[in-house]
C-alpha cells in the first residue's frame, strides 16, 4: 500500500468469487459494493481506524452515501484491483473515489464514490476525527490534492436529454 504523494492507494486485490456472480457468470451489481466496502476497510486502516484503532478511539466509520458507475461486465475468476483517491475531507467527513480495474492494467470496470462519516460509537453520533486519525486524513488529503478530478466523481442519475 502506497501513500507517496500523488499516487493512488492500492486498497483491494483479489478474484471474483463464484458466489458473487449471476446466472451469466458476471459479477452481480450488488457485489461490486462488497468489494468496494472491503477497499473502504483498507482506507480505515490507513487512517488508523483498524480494529485496534477503533478500540483505542471508540470511533468508527459509517458510509453515508455511495455511488457506483458500472462500466464493464466482470467475469467470475477475473483478477481485479481497487485503487482509491481521497477527494476531500473536513473535521468529521472523508470523501473518497475508488476504481475497480483489471489487475495490473488501467482497464476501468467500475467507479465508486463514497462519503464517509466519523462516528463516536458511544452515541452513536457523528464526531470529529480523533487527533491521530485527523493527522493521517489531512496527510492523505494533501497528498491527493493535485490529482485530476476523476471522470465519474460527482455524478447524478438521470435519463439523457
Amino acid at each position: 500500500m502506497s501513500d507517496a504523494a500523488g499516487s493512488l492507494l492500492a486498497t483491494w486485490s483479489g478474484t471474483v468469487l463464484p458466489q458473487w456472480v449471476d446466472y451469466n457468470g458476471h459479477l452481480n451489481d450488488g457485489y461490486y459494493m462488497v468489494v468496494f466496502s472491503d477497499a473502504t476497510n483498507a482506507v480505515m486502516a490507513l487512517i488508523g481506524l483498524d480494529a485496534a484503532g477503533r478500540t483505542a478511539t471508540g470511533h468508527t466509520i459509517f458510509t453515508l452515501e455511495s455511488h457506483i458507475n458500472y462500466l464493464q461486465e466482470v467475469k467470475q475468476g477475473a483478477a481485479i484491483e481497487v485503487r482509491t483517491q481521497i477527494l476531500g475531507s473536513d473535521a468529521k467527513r472523508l470523501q473518497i473515489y475508488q476504481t475497480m480495474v483489471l489487475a495490473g492494467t488501467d482497464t476501468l470496470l467500475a467507479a465508486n464514490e463514497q462519503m464517509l462519516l466519523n462516528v463516536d460509537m458511544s452515541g452513536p453520533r457523528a464526531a470529529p476525527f480523533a487527533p491521530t486519525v485527523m493527522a493521517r486524513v489531512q496527510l492523505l488529503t494533501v497528498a491527493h490534492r493535485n490529482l485530476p478530478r476523476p471522470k465519474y466523481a460527482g455524478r447524478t442519475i438521470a435519463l439523457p436529454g
Partner: protein
Amino acid sequence: METPKRSGHGLKTPLEGSGHRPWDADAPIQAPLCLLKTTVAPQWVDYNGHMSESCYLLVFGDNSDAFFRFIGIDEDYRAAGHSLYTVQTHLHNLHEVAQGEPIRLTLQLLDADEKRVHLFHAMFHGATGELLATGEQMLVHVDMSEGRAVVMPLDLQQRVQAILAAHAALPKPAQAGQPIGLRRKPG
C-alpha cells in the same frame, strides 16, 4: 421450498423459482410498489449484529428482482437473451438495523424511456416505519448476446409506462438526483 433448477452459476434470488405477483392489467397499480418484506438475515450482519453496509444493496437487488418479475422479466425472459442491467447506483445509508428486525421495501419509478428505467428503492423498518436507507438506480435493457442496449418489447414498455403514470403524482424523494459532495451537512 422446492429447489429451483440452476444453470451452474452462483446467485439465487429469494424469489427465484417461487410464485411472485403476476401482472394484472386491470388491477390498480400501487404507488409506490410494495413488493418485498423480509427480516434482516444472519448472513447480512457484521460483528455488531447490524446489517453490513454492503448488504443494503443486496436487499435492494432483491427488491429489483421482485419488480422485474412483476413486469415480466424472469428466468424465461433472460433465457431468451434480454435483461435489465444496472448502470448506476446511489445509496444513502440513514439508520442501522439489527439482525432479525423486520424491514419492508418500496419501489418508485422516477422516469423511463423505451430502453431505460430510473427507479428509487426505500427501505423502512417494518415496525417503526423509520426510513433506513435509499437506493437510486438507472437500469438499461440489454441484448445479452450482443452486449448492447436495445428497446424493450412493447408489452414491457407498456407496463413500465403504466407504473410510471401511477407514480407520477408521488413527490420526488429528497435523496434522488443528488451528487455526493462535502458542501452539504452530514446527515
